[in-house]
């Protein structure tokens, strides 16, 4: 029955197109719906806010996309992010407090470089465990999940790392364009002499975070879509045995995949420091990794591997983000978010079952 139904639907090209891009159509539908139900939903400010707050989720989902295409899963990214955030915070804090001619810029740069290098390690460990010792990805990355969180909490002693240079949030939450209605335009910051208290009088456009996440997405999209690295990622997820027989170094590739995932989580941690101005450990209830997996699956990937795309995953993130934002603005209690994400996941899986030949 299911089979004939899927055949009927596949016979219809228009329907197949909609099914293939159902998440994008749902997103469009929600945007229209919330424009009516939520006051202030349909505005540049709100959309920029949703995007700005979704940056970490987008990075997480992109990391998870690569892993899921190889039919793996990375549960550690949420805590790798926390580890990266508190470690960067701690390094910057120490250097900044030490003074002695180290400018805030230098201490931030040193913190970033060290943390980006450190963030490769959890991925290297899980990757080697998975590729070399055949540990299931779920277990290997759950090991890193615990270890990175433990180390993060040890470093920050259970409190956010504060008293960091103020320039962090100015960059992290800054915009390229500031316009005062009827009063002129300024770039990269408020005009001289204008204090933060009057920031609400300005229309702010294009957050730096969009440039940051946009560049990363462009690189990752290119990597997955146009390079042999991406091609081999799909091949491993589609038929690992075939990839081996085709001469692809599958073990090395898997190690690279988990290192990449961990590295992107590290970038998210650094962004987190810029966004909040402090080094944050990841609370247990945050479940970044599970929301990332949800977004990736909603965006058309399959946990069986072999399919998925950066674009789809970003759509998945925005579907969840706008749903949350729209419900909130429309006055719906926030816990409906979980129900909504659950329903979307079920839809995603059902569509994946009905349209196995797509993509």
């Amino acid at each position, binding site marked *: 029955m299911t089979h004939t139904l899927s055949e009927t639907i596949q016979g219809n090209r228009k329907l197949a197109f909609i099914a293939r891009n159902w998440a994008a159509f749902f997103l469009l539908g929600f945007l229209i719906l919330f424009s009516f139900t939520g006051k202030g939903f349909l505005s540049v400010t709100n959309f920029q806010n949703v995007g700005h707050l979704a940056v970490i989720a987008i990075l997480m989902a992109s990391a998870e996309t690569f892993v899921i295409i190889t039919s793996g899963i990375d549960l550690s990214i949420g805590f790798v992010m926390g580890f990266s955030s508190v470690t960067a915070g701690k390094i910057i804090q120490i250097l900044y407090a030490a003074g002695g001619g180290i400018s805030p810029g230098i201490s931030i740069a040193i913190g970033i470089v060290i943390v980006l290098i450190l963030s490769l390690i959890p991925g290297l460990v899980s990757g080697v465990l998975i590729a070399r010792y055949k540990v299931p990805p779920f277990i290997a990355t759950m090991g890193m999940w615990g270890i990175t969180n433990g180390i993060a909490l040890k470093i920050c002693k259970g409190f956010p790392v504060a008293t960091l240079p103020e320039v962090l949030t100015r960059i992290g939450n800054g915009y390229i364009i500031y316009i005062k209605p009827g009063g002129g335009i300024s770039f990269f910051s408020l005009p001289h002499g204008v204090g933060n208290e009057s920031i609400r009088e300005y229309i702010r456009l294009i957050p730096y975070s969009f440039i940051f996440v946009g560049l990363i997405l462009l690189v990752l999209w*290119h990597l997955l879509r*146009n*390079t*042999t690295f991406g*091609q*081999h990622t*799909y*091949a491993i*997820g*589609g*038929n690992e*045995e*075939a*990839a081996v*027989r*085709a*001469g*692809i170094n599958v073990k090395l590739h898997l190690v690279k995949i988990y290192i990449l995932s961990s590295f992107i989580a590290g970038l998210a941690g650094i962004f987190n420091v810029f966004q909040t101005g402090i080094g944050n450990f990841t609370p247990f209830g945050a479940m970044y990794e599970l929301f990332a997996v949800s977004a990736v699956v909603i965006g058309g990937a399959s946990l069986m591997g*072999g*399919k998925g795309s950066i674009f789809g995953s970003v759509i998945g993130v925005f579907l969840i983000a706008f749903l949350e934002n729209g419900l909130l603005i429309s006055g719906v209690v926030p816990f409906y978010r979980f129900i909504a994400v659950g329903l979307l996941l079920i839809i995603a899986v059902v569509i994946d079952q009905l349209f*196995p*030949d797509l*993509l």
Partner: protein
Amino acid sequence: MEYLVETKNITKRFGGLTAVNKVSFGVQAGEIVAVLGDNGAGKSTLIKMISGVHQPDGGQIFVQGKEVEIHSPMDALSMGIETIYQDLALAENMNVYSNIFLGREKTKKVLGLFNVMDSQYMFDESQGVLDKLNIQIPSLRNNVRTLSGGQRQAVAISRSIYWNAKFLIMDEPTAALGVAQQKLVLDLVKSLKDHGLGIIIISHQMHDVFAVADRIIVMRRGEKVGDLKKEGTNPDEVVNLIVGSESVV
């Protein structure tokens, strides 16, 4: 005429069991040799020593007259020996030309900086090899998952041909295929002779064997009990050899 691939007294033991016992045979370029035998007769083990999956315990293997040691499937590939597997070494989630170029993707430089895959080149080359072998595939941009079993076999074979295979090993190439699909694959196999390939086919289907093979080798209990030209034999004689009521070497 010199053999493309030849074995001399090749032997493989698994513990106390002698799976293949001193088997000597050869395959010439442009020749299709079928290996027949009951289950456990040693056909697969014999073939796997040539494809590099098993290493022989005794005897020699010659490729184009030179003695070689084949330690792994990669070794075999580098000598031009390709195996078309029953379960098909294709990534079903990828399109036809990506499969043909899998692991050996053609790249080009963009802006003198980035290496990107040259899809158009891979598409054109794949179309070329399919045309050469007279294989019809609806679109090379379709995923392999959408192809029939016979078409998938054809894609796997085309890949070997494109990458200059000289010697093909086919394990039950028509198993699990419909009648029309079987014909497609058998016709393709026959046409490969004209391209100068040597081919070994393992099959249970007597009809297939007589349709394509030039020579038939019969294995029983690890030993070669028959090496017959197709013209000089008939299915009855071959069956008798397989089950062991006579022996002709």
